[in-house]
């Protein structure tokens, strides 16, 4: 008595089709699972039988052996409850096996026989489509995300009884053939989920607003240094509202990551660029991805295609911050385990914020800093190094004066700024078509140097900066990249001297001597 169905093991964000075989044979009644089941899969052993019985189906009083093939891949997650249950029902001839062959199954079961919302269903659906299957049978709560995959029949069922009914052709899902328009649901405009947040809320802070716009336009990482209460967090939160709208492909990537992390909450496509602001006590695994057994995406991946905000960046654990290097360079993070490496996309705009010194008031005109000089120096040193090397824009955010605070003049709204950002991005896309990069912030230094057209006086200004202000090689590259973005924002094909000067002004931290304007 043999049955076979398809399940999907999700490793990282990739689904892998798994054959779930069930054999009902001689021996004392028991359920054995072979084929490298992870703890989450083994855990499901205790759920499957009560679920089958609750659904009014019969659990065979025989020895049941389930095999997950190929056996060399460790299978994780609760999504195997449903394929194991259906494999057993197929092996005991309670559902027709023929119809099962075209579907991949995934879903966690409750003891009552309900299909519970399960993480990673979008990855399951993508794997099923890639394998050329007809469709997927998934919890009704996850049907919306599975429908994002085109050309796949999605059966969203709320109970095991419904799944059995579907296979026996006695039950049909209510929305088996949704409108085409629903399938091709466009990403909602950026800011839709952040309706309460707008750049117009920010008073004053002209330089910081400018920096946000440049960061958005070129995809540059940003560091803000300023005393408590200057509005660093408020500014950072508004960056996603001026980033360009996500393409469908980008939105799918975000949706898949959030699905795997179990953050989707039943919705379909995520249309809003993510904003993640982990607390500084976060572990390396929490930031970069990891966990026992099932490897979960970290904050860097949850921020993919969006903004990762590290407030009080100096307070973060050294190993966690050091680990940001790989995602900042490659746009992905690889978590290496004894069992193999797992890769997650992690391309985000980094916004870091810090106080200028431990007490927070160094350089404040109205309040004096109480820190011993060596403590303040130590504090600044925590900021330097590999992370700072990858931050193109660095600026001071002063506290607002009373006049700025009480002024009623509203700032420019996000929609207006975003239009300029979109235009600058369009110029970059056109220029960078055929390269693996989409915006200036992603460019390697050598490429940026070689392919940037600069006015002669702009080149001279850069050369002056190298000599006069000991601009480092990396600092040079960053200045070129920011200059490029400034030119793009202006619609200029050439980097002019004013672009270079403005770019140099955003080099505040670490090398104080570079702050002075180039003359």
């Amino acid at each position, binding site marked *: 008595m043999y049955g076979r169905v398809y399940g999907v093991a999700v490793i990282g964000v990739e689904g892998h089709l798994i054959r779930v075989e069930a054999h009902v044979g*001689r021996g*004392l009644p028991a359920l054995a699972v072979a084929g490298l089941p992870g703890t989450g899969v083994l855990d499901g052993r205790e759920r499957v039988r009560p679920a089958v019985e609750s659904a009014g189906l019969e659990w065979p009083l025989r020895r049941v052996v389930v095999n997950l093939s190929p056996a060399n891949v460790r299978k994780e997650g609760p999504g195997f409850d449903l394929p194991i249950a259906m494999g057993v029902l197929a092996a005991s001839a309670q559902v027709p096996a023929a119809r099962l062959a075209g579907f991949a199954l995934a879903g966690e079961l409750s003891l009552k026989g309900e299909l519970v919302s399960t993480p990673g269903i979008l990855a399951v659906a993508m794997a099923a489509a890639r394998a050329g299957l007809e469709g997927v049978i998934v919890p009704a709560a996850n049907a919306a995300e599975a429908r994002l995959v085109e050309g796949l029949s999605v059966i969203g069922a709320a109970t095991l009884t419904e799944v059995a009914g579907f296979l026996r052709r006695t039950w049909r899902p209510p929305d088996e053939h949704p409108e085409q328009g629903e399938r091709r649901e466009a990403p909602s405009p950026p800011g839709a989920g952040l309706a309460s947040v707008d750049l117009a809320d920010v008073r004053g802070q002209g330089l910081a607003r400018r920096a946000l716009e440049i960061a958005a336009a070129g995809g540059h990482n940003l560091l803000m240094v300023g005393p408590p209460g200057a509005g660093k967090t408020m500014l950072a939160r508004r960056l996603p509202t001026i980033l360009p709208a996500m393409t469908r492909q980008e939105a799918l990537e975000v949706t898949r990551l959030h699905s795997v992390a179990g953050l989707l909450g039943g919705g379909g496509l995520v249309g809003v660029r993510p904003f993640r602001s982990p607390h500084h006590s976060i572990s390396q695994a929490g930031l970069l991805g990891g966990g026992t057994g099932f490897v979960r995406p970290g904050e860097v991946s949850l921020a993919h295609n969006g903004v990762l905000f590290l407030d009080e960046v100096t307070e973060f654990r050294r190993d966690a911050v050091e680990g940001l290097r790989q995602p900042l360079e490659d746009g992905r993070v690889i978590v290496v385990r004894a069992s193999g490496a797992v890769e997650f996309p992690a391309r985000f705009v980094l916004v870091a914020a810090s106080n200028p010194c431990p007490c927070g008031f160094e350089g404040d005109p109205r309040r004096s800093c109480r820190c011993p000089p060596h403590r303040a120096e130590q504090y600044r040193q925590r900021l330097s190094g590999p992370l700072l090397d990858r931050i193109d824009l660095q600026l001071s955010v002063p506290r607002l004066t009373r006049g700025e605070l009480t002024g009623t003049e509203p700032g420019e709204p996000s929609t207006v700024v975003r239009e300029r950002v979109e235009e600058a991005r369009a110029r970059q896309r056109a220029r960078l078509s055929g390269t693996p990069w989409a915006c200036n912030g992603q460019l390697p230094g050598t490429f940026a140097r070689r392919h940037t057209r600069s006015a002669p006086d702009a080149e001279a200004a850069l050369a002056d900066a190298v000599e006069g202000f000991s601009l480092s090689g990396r600092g040079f590259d960053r200045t070129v990249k920011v200059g490029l973005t400034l030119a793009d924002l202006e619609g200029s094909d050439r980097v002019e001297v004013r672009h270079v000067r403005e770019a140099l002004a955003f080099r505040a931290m670490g090398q104080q001597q570079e702050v002075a304007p180039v003359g």
Partner: protein
Amino acid sequence: MGDLARTDLGRIGEDTALARYLDLGYRLVARNWRCRLGELDLVVSHRERNFLVFCEVKCRRGRAFGEPFEAVHHAKQRKLRDLAQAFLQAGPPLADSVRFDVASVTVDGSGRARVDVFEDAF
């Protein structure tokens, strides 16, 4: 049936299981065979095929404490293998191969017995 003694219940179970084996064409080889290791409930052999069946009979009055067969756990299975070996060594060669069954018998309030025989149980 509340006054049914444990030994009586055990015998009812064994009788019920034996009746099932006889119906299926087996013949009794030994019943309640004892040695210092313990006791084998039933030993039967098939008339045509050349193998012995060692059957452990578990009998309960209800399912309140689970199915009777659930009491045949790993330690008991190992003990039954040892017992079977002792049985085979004690007498003349009887068969080429052996099989272990568990007969799970439930007796209801009116004394009716229901038997499930799990062939080749371990």
